[in-house]
Structures are given as structure tokens and as C-alpha cells.
């Protein structure tokens, strides 16, 4: 059982929770994630550790409501408990001084991007960040990203904030302007696919952090498998970060939809339950 100690709303659908987990706070590095089960009936879902406070023994998760589990989590209030949390999982981000890094975050992908941007900045890189979302109220963690970036470009689909346009347009502007040594891209699958095509075109080494479906998160089930460079890899133990230009995004997107019907049923059932209350 892990206690929620504080909560912050970034937007209607995105919430940050600070949670007691002293061992995980101490052991985690940028790029790590945890598996969380909200209650005895809940499923296990992966969430990136966005930041940690070793003195307080807490970690922070940023969660976007998409289905049943993420909604149960975002509904938790300080003082309440998460039934199970295990971690830190996955391989930590490889951090070094590359020179100039282009960091791109789409939607809630900005949350896992934050610890990486922080680590890259601390390693001496010049960091240019592009954060993108459908509209202004979906832009999250802007101040925190600014704190560790030399420059931040904001893109919204509808132009309600920053520049109007897709993340790839913001990336192109920067790539045209200066030499980029390394790129990091985290966001929805489809965004990562197109953003990776952009850096590939310009021969910029790129890593992506994949968000496949997971069950155990410890290498036991293979639900999270993806093809990278023609080989099957498990995102939870071999990743979640991979060479963007080797990832078979089409296969990954297809697999993400594997449980669409079942998820929809669960969501409808949850709605009924909430409506009754």
C-alpha cells in the first residue's frame, strides 16, 4: 500500500500524484517506470516516474485519464492509498553530453520526458524542447520543462497556445536553424512514428520511449513485445527506450489496439457504476 501525499491538476484529464515509496524514490533513475494496481480488482498499468524526492521518500506520477485504471488513479485524493506499486522498472535512460539535444513531448508524453530533459541538462547538453498537444489546456508541465531547457517551443493543433501546427513542424524549424546531435521523442504512438520520420530524414540519432500494453512489467508475459531492428524485444525489460529508427511503429500501433473491445466494455461498465453513485 502506498499513500498519496499530494495531488495537482494540470488539466481536466491530467493529474499529478505524489506518492510515498521510499525504496523506489531512492533506486529510480531517469527513464524508469512503475507498475501500479489501484485496488484488489484493478489491473496493473505502467506509469513513468516523473520525479522523485529521496528526502521525503516520494515519487511523482503524471497520469492522463484514458480508461478505467487511469481514471481510478486520477480520482484518488491525498491520504488515500494505491494498493500495489512495484519498481523501478525498465532500463534507465542513457545520459551523456551529446551536444545539442532536441527533446519532443506530445500530450502526456511530456511527463516521462521531464526527468530525461532534467538529466540531459545536468549532463551539460544544450536542450531545446518542443512540447505539443491538441490544445492549450492539454499542455502540461511547461514550467518544469522550461526549468531544464535552453529553449521551449510550444505547438498546438488548434493554435490556442504557442504556434499552430504539429510537433513535426516545430521540430523542422529547429533542425533547419541549428545542428542537432541527438533527439528524444515521447508521446502517443502515432506522434512518435511521424516525429521519428522527421529526425530520420535529417540523420539525427533518436530515442523513443514506447508505451505498449503491459501486464507484469517484469519480462514475464510478452504482452509488451515490439519489433526493433527486425528482432522481437520486450519493452518492459529491454526498454522502454529504443532507437527510434529501428522501431516497427505500425506493428506497435496495431498491437496497442489489441484489447480495444475489452477496454471499451470495461469502460462502459465503470461509467455505469459511477453513474449509479
Amino acid at each position: 500500500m502506498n499513500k498519496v501525499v499530494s495531488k495537482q491538476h494540470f488539466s481536466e484529464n491530467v493529474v499529478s500524484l505524489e506518492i510515498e515509496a521510499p525504496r523506489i524514490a531512492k533506486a529510480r533513475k531517469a527513464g524508469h517506470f512503475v507498475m501500479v494496481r489501484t485496488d484488489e480488482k484493478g489491473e496493473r498499468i505502467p506509469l513513468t516516474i516523473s520525479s522523485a524526492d529521496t528526502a521525503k521518500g516520494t515519487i511523482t506520477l503524471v497520469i492522463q485519464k484514458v480508461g478505467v485504471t487511469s481514471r481510478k488513479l486520477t480520482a484518488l485524493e491525498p491520504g488515500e492509498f494505491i494498493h500495489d506499486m512495484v519498481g523501478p522498472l525498465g532500463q534507465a535512460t542513457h545520459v551523456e553530453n551529446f551536444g545539442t539535444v532536441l527533446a519532443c513531448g506530445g500530450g502526456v508524453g511530456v511527463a516521462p520526458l521531464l526527468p530525461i530533459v532534467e538529466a540531459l541538462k545536468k549532463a551539460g547538453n544544450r536542450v531545446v524542447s518542443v512540447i505539443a498537444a491538441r490544445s492549450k489546456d492539454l499542455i502540461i508541465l511547461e514550467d518544469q520543462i522550461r526549468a531544464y531547457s535552453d529553449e521551449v517551443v510550444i505547438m498546438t493543433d488548434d493554435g490556442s497556445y504557442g504556434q499552430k501546427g504539429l510537433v513535426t513542424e516545430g521540430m523542422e524549424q529547429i533542425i533547419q536553424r541549428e545542428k542537432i546531435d541527438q533527439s528524444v521523442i515521447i508521446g502517443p504512438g502515432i506522434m512518435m512514428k511521424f516525429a521519428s520520420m522527421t529526425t530520420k530524414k535529417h540523420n539525427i540519432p533518436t530515442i523513443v520511449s514506447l508505451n505498449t500494453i503491459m501486464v507484469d512489467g517484469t519480462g514475464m508475459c510478452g504482452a509488451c513485445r515490439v519489433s526493433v531492428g527486425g528482432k522481437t524485444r520486450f519493452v518492459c525489460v529491454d526498454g522502454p527506450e529504443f532507437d527510434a529508427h529501428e522501431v516497427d511503429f505500425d506493428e506497435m500501433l496495431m498491437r496497442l489496439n489489441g484489447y480495444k473491445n475489452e477496454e471499451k466494455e470495461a469502460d462502459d461498465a465503470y461509467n455505469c457504476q459511477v453513474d449509479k453513485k
Partner: protein
Amino acid sequence: MTNITDYLKEERSAAWREELRKAKKNKERTDLTRVKMPEAPARERARSYVEVNSGLTPEQAINEASRCIDCANPTCISGCPVGINIPKFIKNIERGEFLDAARTLKETNALPAVCGRVCPQEKQCEASCFYQVKMNREPVAIGYLERFAADFEQSGGEISIPEVAAANGTKVAVVGSGPAGLAFAGDMAKFGYDVHILEALHEIGGVLKYGIPEFRLPNGVVDVEIESLRKMGVQFETNFIVGKTATIQELREEGFKGFFVGSGAGLPRFMNIPGENLVGILSSNEYLTRVNLMGASTQGMDTPVMRGKNVVVIGGGNTAMDSVRTALRLGADKATIIYRRSLEEMPARVEEVKHAQEEGVEFLTLNNPVEYIGDDKGRVKQIRVQKMELGEPDQSGRRSPVPVEGSEYIIDADTVVVSVGVSPNPLIPQSLPDLKVSRWGTLVVDEETFQTSIPDVFAGGDIVRGGATVILAMGDGRKAAASMHQYLQGQ
């Protein structure tokens, strides 16, 4: 070994055993036929999670126990990896002392209710029974009787909690809560150690919980055993991955003096054939974990599972049988096993194959998938299958399958469960670079002491053997406990 022979002799010469032997002529005993295990009807059980075998009645058990002729040289014992005093427990059943029978089992087996259900008896104890070996008759139903005695003890609420030595204040950690870890923990608690089991998942029990289904091994049976360990003072911490949540070195700094690694062989293997990553193709670990650990088949649970109508399972082991029978229980109209050798070579327990057949599972033996074909949404719809024939015996003594050229054909499937074996869990070796590992990824240990290349780290079960059995894992745990005890005493 002489002391064990002496012990068996002495036990056998107990007055009550002599009397029982005289009570019936051997001829009368051998004339009896082997008991049939009462089972839930195949049609009903294939759609529910009730336990298939319902257990012997006391009359059936006593009758079956009287078949055993209490051999002077009980060969059955050498067939049991933990050397249970089989005639002693069976004769206790015959004379109606069921609790004594259970106590006899617990002298060497920490989880008799589990082993009675899942041991491959036909390859172990029962294969070495006098009836089988000397008379070519059906062996005494040792497994059924073991289960009977253990269940009797569990249901009476009179679980004998083994005596525990005075606390010696030494902390030891167990990595993983499968049968190896549980057996190790039980013995170390008896020796007086402060035992902490650290488990990666949110449940205790390892494969007994997340792998073997409810219809074969109800979770309640395992929970009783876990509860007795708790009463003996063993502490459990779930959601703790040794090597990630904390390293062995950090645990040493926290005062742990010895480590037992029972982290199992939990990694699924795939065949790496085209189309294997299509939607609807999953490992048996994923399939069984969703159902058994996450309760996906129960109303009100959040975790989903694919409920295919036409499910094909690849493989011939216990895991494959559990998966294919789970498919039926999830509502499949058709459930098929594809196995590359013949029925005789199947590594699964004979009883599981029989039960699967009764429940309507189809067996495509001497066949092997070579490619999966998907629809436009990326979901599997067909399998390209190749026929096989048996060639020369391989290292394991089984005849190896050889593909038949030009024999490929296509079958339909909407869900495929790949159950072609498991690999050792790499988490511990990854976090302990000095640990000696074989080229298969298993931990290298001293055969007698189960000590690894790092003196305070011992290991046993599937992480040492690759995929093996519950009873072997348990036996390892117990031997490792004895030698770690010696090692720590010497410190």
C-alpha cells in the same frame, strides 16, 4: 545412506505396521483394483473453474491404501525426489490415522496438498511402485492418497504448525515465493532464522498462483500453506523486485546474512516465426497470468483477456494443457493443441492430457506452425502448419521431429497461445555481475549445497534447473536451507 535405510526399517518394524501387514494377505491386496478419482463431469467442468478432481472419500482412500503391500524394499521412495516415507503415510491412511499420515508427509514435503495434485506421479513415485515394476499392474495411487491426507488435515482446521527453534536473530532473505522459496523459508524458520520472502508480484506463490489454474490447483490450497509459514514467523513482502527495488548489496547493508534465489524460469519463449507479433497471439504466461493472477475471467475485474472462439495452443507441456483448457473455460467453441511430436512424447502429466481429451480438446500432433497470417486489422486469422515425422532420439531421449517437405497447409484460428517453453529470469544475474551463470542463463550452483559462486547466495528451483517441477523446486529449497544453515553456523 545407511541411516535412511535403518530409519525406514525401524519405522517398518513398528508394531502397528506389522499388525497391519498381517491383517490381510498380499494376495487379497493385489487382487484389488486401483481406485478411480471422482471427477466433475467433463461437459460441466469444461465451462467452469471447479476443481476437476474432487478427491477420494475416506472409504476409497482406506481401500486404496490397503493395496499397498508395505514392501520390505519400498522402491516407490526412490522415485520421489524428496524421499517421502511413502509406505508409512499410506499405512497410516489404511489404519484411519489420517492426521498421522499428513504428519509423515510433512517430514519431507512442505506442500503435500500441492504435490499430491500436480506431481508427475506416473514418472516418479508411481513409476517405481512394486505393482508397476514387478507386476506390470496399475501402481498404488500414491498421488491421490497424498492429496487425501493433506486435504484431510487442511479441512479439519487442525494444521500442525511445525515446531520452531528459538529465534537466533539472523536475518535471511528469499527472492521469489514459488515452491522453492516457500520450502526454503519453512525450513529456515524451523531452524530459528528471521526469514523475509521478497516477491516481485502482488501475490505469494509463484507459478502455483499465476500459472497453474484454479481447476487443477485451487488458490485456497496454496494459501493454507502460506498461512502456516506466516504462523511460523516468516515475513512476506510483495511488490519487491530484488535487483531493482533494492540490490542484494543494499540488503546486505540492511543486515541480511544469507540469500536464497528462487526466482524461477518465468520468461516466455517465442518461436520467432513470421507473424508471431500479430494481435491475438500471446504467450501462455500472458494468457494464464491474465486469468489466474489478474482474475480476468471473473466479473468485476478490470483486466481483460481475449476470449477467442477458435483457439489454438502451441506446445505439449503442462502449460499448454492448462492454456487450452482455460480457452474452453473462457468460452471457446474449438480449442486445439498443435504439438510437433506425438502424444507419447508429450511432457505434460498423463492425467492432464486425458482430462483435456475428455473435455473436447483437439490434438494436432506431429504438426508445427511455420507462419501466422493476419487480417487487415493485424489480428491473426490463420496459421500455416507443417507436418512433422519422428526421427532419431535426441539428447533428452525423445525422438526428434523432422519437418515433412511440401506438407504445409492452412488452418483457421482467431487466438493463438504460444507455449513452447520458458527461460530463466535474468533479473538476479543482471544485478549481480559476479554470479556464475550457465549458457542457458540458469544459475550455477554446487550440486550438494546449492551454493552459488557468491558464498552468501544460494539458489534452487527453476532458476537453477530451467523449467522443472514443483517437487524438484521444493526439494532444492530444503537442501539449500540445510546447507545455508551450516554455512551461517560456521560464520
